[in-house]
């Protein structure tokens, strides 16, 4: 950066590579780095020590650093930042990078690397992390000269956050950050990448075509995904959907983009989606897909997918369009701008088949009615709590306004089904990769940026044990997340599949030696409450949510026999579902 001296001359600032990194992060507006030190990253850590602008959070495992940065990114919409050392530090981060990649989450991962002259010699803690992460990053860079650090980092943040977001890895050999070598530092305000220019608007002709189909539709459904959330298109989407009065279903990643409590919302769709959303998709004559990718957990068998529907597909990533399901009207463009253009075309016009739409809604309301009050069977007196019930209670206690992170398994699906979200960025889950261990560190990352909000991690005793070391991080930084352990004493989702497909042969889905969670949590100096019967639930929740800054762990014993329904029947269409242990469509 050019500095003015007292005499009005400008001088150029000379910084070491390590100081450039710290300084760049500040200039880029990075608030938090999640990381873990080690030899190759020590120059950088020293630079962080000598400044106060960027806060570094020391996690207890590098995977947690990536999930925490990811949670922060999902809640705030800003890229998360991770710093790890070479070799094992970097490989520990791999699962978190893959998790972010699958869900298109903006993240920059700075990896220390052995000094340039050692690369390729199998030096101590050397791993080709660029090679290892190649299929799970949006892009990656190796620093080859300290002077290029500001520009490479700028590119990294720009790539991570623009277009279809994703993780970017920057490999930094130790000699690039040597304190003795100083180079000119200027924060790059502009960057040019000749091979990368995400589209800024959709093709007008295609948008017109889509709108004509939309106005003529008799049985339309909006099917929207995470692209609405990352593309900041929730408001225009809500506007468009309300104007047209059409039903809308979202993916797991798109939950909250349209208020779920609204009548037009059918909830989310797919393998464990709502009955009415899957039925509506199957019978639709027009699917308006925006920022969603027709993934296999949504479509069930693609050959039987939505047999009578024409498909409009809007996505910022051309490769998402017609990848698994052919689009009739493909539109490449950012969700917000395309939707706004649609709104201006729809303005002053009415759907041309009002009677058909009334009939369509009657059909949908009929499906809703069919399942009303039958979603799950509440616990009889003396029976263990039902997980569904617990989630409903948490939703009530937090007025539907909490940030809810999940791990992976039955509890994840229950959290998605029974917590009702009216806002985006609130349901935070590893949708694409399905990473057990994601929920707790993600909650940690969110709570730090949203200290006044309730941040609840809904987890299972299997998943929690994958990242429970982070209790120590929460202790160090006073992070008051609420952990709800839906303890069914088993890897419930695995068990459910074994019940359904392997005649209940529960191969290794049962955990015989669970820790006493209460003692475990207390060892870290936190409060844990055990809930074994329905009467204990309410007082426990009251206690847990009394203080927003206190970490409380609820170990809730739920019915281990419970299954998640609806559930798609494998190889079927979207309407082929198991509805309970005894009913199917």
């Amino acid at each position, binding site marked *: 950066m050019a500095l003015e001296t007292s005499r009005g001359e400008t001088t150029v600032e000379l910084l070491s590579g390590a100081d450039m990194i710290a300084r760049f992060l500040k200039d880029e507006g990075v608030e938090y780095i999640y990381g873990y030190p080690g030899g190759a990253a020590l120059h950088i850590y020293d630079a962080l020590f000598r400044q106060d602008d960027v806060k570094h959070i020391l996690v207890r495992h590098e995977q947690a650093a990536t999930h925490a940065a990811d949670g922060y990114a999902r809640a705030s919409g800003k890229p998360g930042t991770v710093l790890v050392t070479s070799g094992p530090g970097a490989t520990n981060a791999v699962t978190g990078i893959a998790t972010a990649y699958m869900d298109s989450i903006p993240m920059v991962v700075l990896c220390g690397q052995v000094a340039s002259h050692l690369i390729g010699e199998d030096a101590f803690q050397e791993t080709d992390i660029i090679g290892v992460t190649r*299929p799970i990053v*949006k892009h*990656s860079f190796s620093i080859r000269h300290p002077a290029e650090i500001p520009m490479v980092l700028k590119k990294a943040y720009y790539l991570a956050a623009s277009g279809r977001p994703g993780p970017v890895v920057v490999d930094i050999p130790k000699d690039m950050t040597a304190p003795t070598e100083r180079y000119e530092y200027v924060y790059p305000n502009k960057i040019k990448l*000749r091979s990368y220019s995400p589209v800024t608007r959709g093709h007008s002709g295609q948008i017109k075509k889509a709108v004509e189909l939309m106005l003529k539709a008799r049985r339309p459904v909006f099917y929207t995904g995470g692209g609405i959330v990352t593309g900041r298109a929730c408001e225009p989407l809500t506007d468009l959907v309300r104007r047209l009065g059409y039903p809308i279903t979202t993916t797991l990643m798109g939950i909250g983009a349209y208020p779920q409590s609204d009548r037009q919302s059918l909830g989310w769709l797919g393998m464990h989606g709502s009955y009415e959303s899957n039925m509506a998709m199957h019978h639709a004559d027009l699917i308006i897909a925006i920022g969603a990718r027709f993934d296999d957990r949504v479509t069930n068998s693609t050959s039987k997918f939505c047999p009578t529907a024409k498909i409009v597909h809007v996505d910022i*990533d*051309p*490769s998402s369009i017609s990848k698994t399901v052919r689009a009739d009207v493909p539109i490449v463009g950012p969700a917000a701008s395309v939707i706004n253009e649609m709104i201006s075309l729809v303005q002053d016009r009415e759907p041309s088949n009002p009677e058909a739409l009334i009939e369509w809604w009657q059909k949908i309301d009929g499906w809703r009615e069919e399942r009303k009050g039958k979603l799950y069977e509440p616990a009889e007196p003396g029976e263990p709590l039902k997980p569904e019930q617990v989630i409903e209670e948490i939703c009530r206690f937090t007025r539907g306004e909490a940030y809810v992170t999940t791990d992976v398994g039955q509890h994840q699906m229950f959290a998605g089904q029974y917590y009702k979200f009216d806002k985006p960025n609130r349901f935070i889950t590893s949708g694409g990769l399905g990473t057990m261990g994601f929920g707790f560190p993600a909650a940690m990352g969110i709570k730090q940026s949203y200290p006044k909000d309730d941040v609840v991690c809904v987890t299972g005793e299997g998943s929690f044990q994958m990242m429970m070391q982070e209790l120590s991080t929460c202790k160090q930084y006073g992070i008051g997340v609420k952990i709800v352990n839906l303890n069914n004493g088993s890897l419930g989702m695995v068990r459910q599949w074994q019940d359904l497909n392997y005649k209940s042969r529960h191969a290794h889905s049962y955990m015989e030696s669970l820790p006493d969670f209460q003692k475990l949590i207390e060892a870290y100096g936190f409060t844990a409450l055990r809930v074994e019967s329905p009467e204990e639930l309410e007082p426990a929740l009251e206690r847990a949510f009394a203080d927003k800054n206190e970490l409380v762990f609820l170990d809730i014993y739920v019915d281990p026999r419970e299954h998640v329904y609806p559930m798609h029947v494998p190889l079927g269409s979207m309407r082929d579902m198991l509805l309970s242990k005894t009913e199917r469509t």
Partner: protein
Amino acid sequence: MRHIISILLENEPGALSRVVGLFSQRNFNIESLNVAPTEDETLSRLTVTTVGDDRIVEQITKQLNKLIDVVKLVDLTEGNHIERELMLVKVKALGAQRDEVKRTADIFRAQVVDVAPGVYTVQIAGDAGKLDAFVQAMAPIGILEVARTGVSGIARGDKMLSL
């Protein structure tokens, strides 16, 4: 169907592995691959031949375009184009075989470029089909070694793959 895709790629370390990795990662097929620098030292040109139906080839080009290091690409098979491959073949050349090698080479407009006792090395350029035919023709005489460059191609006329 067979497609020839030509790609202008940033001349950066690791760029090639991103392209090659993409093919294995997404289960796309590569029949041949050919890479070399261009007149612009910041770019290399890569030509890949692949086989797949329209849907797959559409995915291949879209996924390639998504790579940050891919600057531009063209599916040459969508228009008129010239396709060439160079092959060097070592064949047995003892006694009467020498004449036969020479005759066959002439028919294919191939050239003998190196001679050693009992061995001729023949060079031939052409499209992949011609090279295949030459290999077949030489097979009865006795092929000792084959080195092919993989297909390279360019559009006919004034169409260009450039920045």
